[in-house]
């Protein structure tokens, strides 16, 4: 999922300054899992905005706000109210905000769309409702087959491909002593698999052109273009 954290409320009211009639759009996908933009948080935000003197036209959470089809289906019945809105507040990732803007543009509506969350990356949930961690940054050329299923590009602070830096201590990373050194994890995993010799292979510098932004995914042909 895409991880999100709430922006401070003052930052949100600042962004909404001068706009009175607000619609709040959350996301029942990732933002719900992060407890930042699901139906509950959207309702809470609507209340807070009302207390702050705004009139809230409606508040809802599409099933997945980053998906243009689902967002449109959710917004279609609200079109009349949307036309009245001074601004939209989206409690979703940066993608959800931009898809919402695109849906509005498709309706022919030019309304400011503001974001109420900060997006913090692709996250994997370890403990539901408690903890998610970043383990993949979509480098476009997955090397997990070489590294025992543990990603050094993401889990090593320095994205080292040919082994650890000298700084790990007690198995922890020099950058953050609460975090395991990715290379020690990889080493232990490869040792357990009896495949340590595979780590001797020189890993070529990564092809970062595969991460050159913005990428486009041709879903039909299943390729990046």
């Amino acid at each position: 999922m895409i991880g999100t954290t709430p922006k401070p409320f003052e930052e949100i009211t600042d962004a909404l300054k001068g706009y009175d009639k607000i619609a709040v759009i959350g996301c029942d996908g990732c933002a719900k899992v992060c407890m930042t933009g699901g139906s509950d948080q959207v309702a809470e935000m609507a209340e807070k905005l009302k207390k702050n003197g705004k009139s809230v036209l409606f508040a809802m959470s599409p099933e997945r706000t980053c998906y243009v089809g689902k967002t449109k289906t959710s917004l279609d019945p609200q079109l009349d109210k949307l036309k009245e809105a001074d601004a939209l507040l989206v409690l979703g990732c940066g993608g959800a905000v931009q898809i919402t803007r695109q849906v509005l543009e498709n309706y022919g509506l030019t309304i400011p769309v503001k974001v109420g969350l900060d997006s913090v990356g692709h996250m994997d949930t370890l403990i539901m409702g408690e903890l998610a961690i970043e383990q993949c940054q979509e480098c476009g050329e997955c090397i997990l087959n070489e590294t025992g299923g543990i990603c050094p590009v993401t889990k090593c602070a320095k994205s080292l491909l040919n082994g650890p830096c000298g700084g790990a201590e007690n198995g922890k990373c020099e950058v953050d002593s609460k975090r395991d050194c990715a290379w020690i994890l990889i080493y232990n995993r490869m040792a357990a698999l009896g495949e340590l010799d595979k780590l001797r292979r020189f890993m070529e510098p990564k092809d970062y052109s595969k991460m050159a932004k913005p990428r486009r995914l041709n879903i039909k042909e299943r390729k990046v273009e």
Partner: protein
Amino acid sequence: MKLTELFDKGEFVITGEVGPVKGCLRSTAGSKLPQCAQEAELVRNVVHAVNVTDNQSAVMRLGSLAASVKLKERGFEPIYQMTCRDRNRIALQSDLLSACSLGIDNVLCLTGDYTSLGDHKTAKSVFDIDSVQLLKIAKGLNEGHDMMGNALTQSTNLALGAVVNPNFEPLDLQLLKMEKKIEAGAQFFQTQAVYDSAVFEKMVKKTEKFGVPIQYGVVIIKSPQMGKFMNENVSGITVPAWIIEEMGKVAKQDRKKKAIEITAKLIREIKPMVQGIHFMPLGWADIVPEIMKAVSSAA
């Protein structure tokens, strides 16, 4: 002069580290010698070459290349340290060409301390390539081509050094990387600070067969507080309790004397296992000559 020539001749190679100043080095009338040059002067008669750090600990300073060139002008042999933290593969290769063009003969290729440890914590970390890849790329430049295989009008001619941390657990993982560095092009190694000859011996037993020269890395412990600080804050280094105790026992004004004694003792124990010593004096460069004197007088 390349350090590899000294090792080849069987010379016991001594080097000392200096950190470039935080500021510009444009000399004006009456300007006094910058700190890094003063530190180099203190060890001039005991070292073969001077390591020049690259924005060490991610603290922004004068560039390692400019400081290296300035030291070369003063008759020192610089070892230009290069980290992968701040530059991508284009800038690193270009700087290697620049270094060779400016008369640099030795490069030490490192990963680099992470950005958040330094004084520009909000900077974007680069780490486009790692130290093993940097060594391979530098070797390629020596052979006349860039990493994409494009021919150079003139090759570089650089001796390539690397680092290894004998304290690392698991050691075999660190040595796996060391072997990769050798295969990639590393011709000599400098170690992280070690305060236990048994730790060093454990490593040397496994690295002897690699056949590359290793310099023992020495960080002088200046006070009991520094020893404790390093144990708590500098990852990858362990300062044993006996050193902290001994330094704590003497009066402040006698600490240098004690440091000479302790460091010389460690060097005497480890010297037979290595091909040189690399000093990282952190402000106490003045006692390096005395340490070396103490080492040889007891020998």
